[in-house]
């Protein structure tokens, strides 16, 4: 694949955006659509006018547009983090009970047939946070 083809290729990435107080008032997501032609899907958002804002989004668009969009966000003072790092499982605390399996709306937890060992697929995780408190031994951890 040539460099040009690579930049034309569509990418789908889930990222966590941290907005410092000073940029919360700016229409950043509007610019992402308008200037960089990126589709976005908000998975979780918590922004208050007083404090830092946080948004989990899925961004979809051409690689070159995505790269430029990320550059724009960074220049605006928004910190970007890959999503999969944000909910983790403390393997020492997980007992493989399975209480999380029906709580997760994204199907990130599965009980392995036969062994009943509970697997966590962080790629499917949408960082909704529902598993954090539903986990009886509190093995799921949310990192921002």
């Amino acid at each position: 694949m040539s460099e040009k083809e690579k930049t034309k290729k569509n990418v789908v990435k889930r990222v966590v955006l941290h907005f410092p107080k000073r940029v919360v008032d700016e229409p950043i997501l509007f610019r992402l659509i308008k200037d960089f032609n990126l589709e976005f899907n908000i998975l979780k958002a918590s922004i208050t006018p007083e404090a830092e804002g946080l948004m989990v989004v899925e961004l979809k668009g051409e690689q070159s547009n995505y790269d430029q969009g990320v550059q724009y966000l960074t220049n605006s003072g928004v910190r970007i983090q890959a999503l999969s790092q944000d909910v983790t499982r403390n393997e020492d605390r997980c007992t493989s009970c399975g209480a999380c399996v029906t709580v997760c709306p994204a199907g990130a937890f599965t009980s392995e047939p036969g062994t009943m060992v509970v697997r966590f697929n962080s790629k499917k995780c949408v960082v909704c946070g529902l598993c954090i408190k539903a986990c009886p031994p509190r093995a799921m951890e949310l990192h921002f």
Partner: protein
Amino acid sequence: MTKTIDEINQKIKQGQAVVVTAAEIIEIAKQEGVKKAAERVDVVTTGTFGPMCSSGAYFNIGHAKPRIKLGGGKAYLNDVPAYAAFAAADLFIGANALPDDDPRNRNHPGDFNYGGGHVIEELAAGHDIRLTASAYGTDCYPRKKLETWINIKDLNEAVLFNMRNAYQNYNVAVNTTDKTIYTYMGVLKPRLGSAGYSSAGQLSPLMNDPCYKTIGIGTRIFLGGGIGYVAWPGTQFNPGAPRTENGVPREGAATLCVIGDLKQMSSRYLVGTSMLGYGCSLTVGIGVPIPILNEEILRYTTVTDAEILAPIIDYGTSYPNRIPESLGEVSYAELRSGKIKVQGKSVPTASLSSYPRALEIANTLKEWIKNGKFLLTDPVAPLPGPDSGVKFKPLNERPLGEV
């Protein structure tokens, strides 16, 4: 063919006992037949690992200088209240105890991040625990205040004492209402959106000896990673529950009251547990060895998840109001498949007890016995059997205004 516990113990001491888990015996009996398997196999080990709310621990902290009488005073362990109603230096902490300043369900559903179960886990893990106590002071126990770190290694005795553990069978919890509910059976989604269950099924101790032919008062067991004993029938003991043809109860039935030295236990098998919107608890690991004394006892241990049924109960309506209504029965094989059918709807299932860790316990106990580290005991007295007439009664409320 019959064997005695003495004969089995002789073989254990010589390292010649044939010990298998309750999962392995199913295939063995299928291959060899019950008769041959009963001759060859000496012990079947079981295991369970689930939240067991009626758990607690007592210990003696030693006498302070000058002395303080905790009995009749107040005592807290990491801010969690302990029961101080014994003599000067004994305390009991229950798994469900909560710090006085925990908001509980005021902001529903409450988190219940730390309680008595967590204190017991931390004690077993060897962590320092903050003890704060106040007393009224007497001539012989003048002190009124005590604040100190304590550690399990310095305690005179530390004993796990659980009045109701290892439920023989249990409800499958669902929710037919329009709201998510937060129960001790987990978070239950509205309109039959999920089902919670909690049993090791074919691995579970009392499922493998359903009529209590070998498990009795004094039976030596795996408890919390150490060695413990069956102390008594557990509370809410209900041996008269309806049973299937193979003797397995189709609902709650028997429970075990167990005791053991907390000092030799491990936080891997005693895990502080938080049930969202419900409270704190302790997840306890228990394993019971079943001596294969005859064919009948072996046959009981071959029970499979497909043969064990549990009632489906609506925790949104009938359970809280004590309405004896079941939405049907389902097997543990179906529950473990990830989906069950309730009122024609496919409902995803979630387990509250850990099957993998129950298996780990059965395997650990198997190794202990094979290595001669763990000998079997004859019960001192039996548990009340299915025909004993012992019943689990509901509370009959008598309004205080009436005499």
